[in-house]
């Protein structure tokens, strides 16, 4: 198990390193940020100074090495737009995004998995067909359009919920979060539902497919031949089996929820990192883009690593092979 873990860690580091190069080079190719940042009327001297200040006169590989060295010291550069350290900027926005992702993932799971189980258990029932139809909508209708409808309906027409932004912060267990206040919840609920729909649709389909397949396996038939009631077959035999693919996909989708937060945050004007990256792309704020992308890659790799480990825990076939090795 330790060897397996080490191997996965080395892989993870290589991936992060490779991605940081790709992202850095890729982002470098975008225009010349100075043109955007500096008043066209500025003197050539000011221009030169600024270019030197941001290190834009250095060759690309040099800039990358400087970047890498700074990163090692926890310095990801300074935002060209906000003029504050990028690390501070990203971390000031991160809690809002994590809040949103957390709530939406909970909604998706609490609704998606039971709905999928039901749809797979009674695949021909009217309820199952309705659930499946909704799941198709959930992951095929673009997120931003549903978000917009939600705003039109619940904020503009009905006036029940605020149309955007993040609510008042409170503190739970020393953590400052908007989830501690009623105002915070009224702000987070609509974007969270919006963000959860895609994942919910996916979870429903995945759980249903697993359920349908499991119900026709021999071990389920064998369990039925032993007189086990369906409830026990579903919860003790089937759930354990289909939890493996569900956890895998769930974990991987956690990363994509983080990425799709970009869209939801833009629609609901949610002050998280997703909105930050869109703004920084539009304003060519290079250090912010690079840091965001590197941060997301690191999160991704961490999530993948966790998924692998959980997978190994859940499936005895993988787990025991790991122990033998």
């Amino acid at each position, binding site marked *: 198990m330790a060897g397996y873990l080490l191997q996965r860690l080395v892989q993870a580091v290589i*991936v992060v390193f490779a991605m940081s190069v790709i*992202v850095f080079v*890729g*982002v470098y*190719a*975008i225009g010349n940020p100075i043109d955007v940042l500096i008043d066209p009327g500025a003197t050539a001297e000011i221009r030169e100074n600024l270019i030197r200040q941001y290190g834009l006169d250095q060759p690309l590989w040099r800039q990358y090495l400087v970047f890498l060295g700074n990163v090692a010291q926890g310095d990801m550069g300074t935002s060209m737009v906000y003029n504050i350290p990028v690390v501070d900027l990203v971390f000031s926005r991160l809690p809002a995004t994590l809040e949103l992702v957390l709530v939406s993932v909970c909604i998706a799971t609490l609704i998606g998995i039971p709905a999928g189980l039901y749809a797979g258990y009674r695949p021909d029932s009217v309820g199952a067909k309705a659930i499946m139809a909704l799941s*198709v*909508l959930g992951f*095929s*209708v*673009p*997120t*931003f*359009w549903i978000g*917009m*409808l939600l*705003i*039109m309906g619940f904020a*503009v027409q009905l006036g029940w919920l605020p*149309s955007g932004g993040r609510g008042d912060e409170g503190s739970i267990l020393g953590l400052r979060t908007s989830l501690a206040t009623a105002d915070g919840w009224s702000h987070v609920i609509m974007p969270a539902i919006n963000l959860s729909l895609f994942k919910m649709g996916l979870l429903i389909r995945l759980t249903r497919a697993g359920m349908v397949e499991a119900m026709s396996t021999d071990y389920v038939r064998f369990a039925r031949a032993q007189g086990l009631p369906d409830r026990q077959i579903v919860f003790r035999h089937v759930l354990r089996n289909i939890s493996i693919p569900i956890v895998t996909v769930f974990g*991987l989708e956690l*990363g*994509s929820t983080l*990425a*799709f937060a*970009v*869209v939801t945050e*833009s*629609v609901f004007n949610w002050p998280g990192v997703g909105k930050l*990256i*869109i703004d920084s*792309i*539009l304003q060519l704020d290079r250090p912010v*883009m690079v840091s965001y*992308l590197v941060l*997301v*890659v690191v999160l*991704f790799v961490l999530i*993948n690593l966790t998924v692998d480990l959980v997978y190994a825990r859940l499936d005895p076939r993988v787990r025991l092979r790991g122990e033998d090795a």
Partner: protein
Amino acid sequence: MTNAHADTATTTGGTIAVPSAAPRETRADRWRNFWADYRQSPVAVVSLGVILVLLGVSFGAPLVSPQDPYDMAALDWMDAFLRPGTTGSGGYVHVLGTDNAGRDMLSAIFYGLRTSFVIGISAGVLALAIGICVGLSAAYFRGRTESVLMRIVDLQLSMPAILLALVMVAVLGQGVAQIVAALVVAQYAYFARTTHGAATVERSKDYIEAARSTPLPTRRVLLRHLLPNVMPPLIVVATVQVASAIALEATLSFLGVGLPLTEPSLGSLISNGFKYIHTDRTWLSIYPGLFLMVTVVAINLVGDQVRTVLDPRRSR
């Protein structure tokens, strides 16, 4: 319980019965069978019809739309923000109203739909072609080529498409070609993975080994033997990917990093309408959104049914 050639011709004692050979299934038969199975779902048939109609009005947009939304000269500021059903200065009814520039929404939607289809289909076809090449090469050459290629594919698959597309658009800039490139980069990996998966299963079967042991060139083995057998799952992925390419393009345009409003796609139309979301001018965002939704959902439903029909595990 299944046996294709069931009819046996035996008369009386002693003679050996010869089982009649199963009739060879022609291509036309396969299509007919496919259609007979496909037709089982009325929803899927309606969806297919909807897609055909939408393709018709979008590619025939210059013929069926009352106005050319690209022609700035034809726009009249006096016509701005007309409600759906109002008659404008052009003397015809704006069924879905007009936007802030006096553009007829129905025309803009038809043209926008065309842009969306062009982008979605070309991205889907390109991604399919590239994905097949990558997947087949990996499956065929094995060894290091396979592990390197599939490692890259897996890595890309673990990154959400929206993120890859954002980076690509940020790097390449705006425009139809750039968006298509971004979508291809974001999506080819699905095809590569599917091709590779199906091809790995197929290559372990005897007929591929048999083909490899004959002096046929590699290319022929790949194209004539492997490809036809990996097509069914690819068709399913392709349908779904065209839909998601259309949705993704709309999302990028909505975020302001896709197509500019001068080249209306459904996404940029909705994005424009979003500005007026707090007013009562909801037609600006609702109608293009409805078209987008119907398009994407219909394609997905068709894909679903194709998947069901092609599923080899389904009892025939």
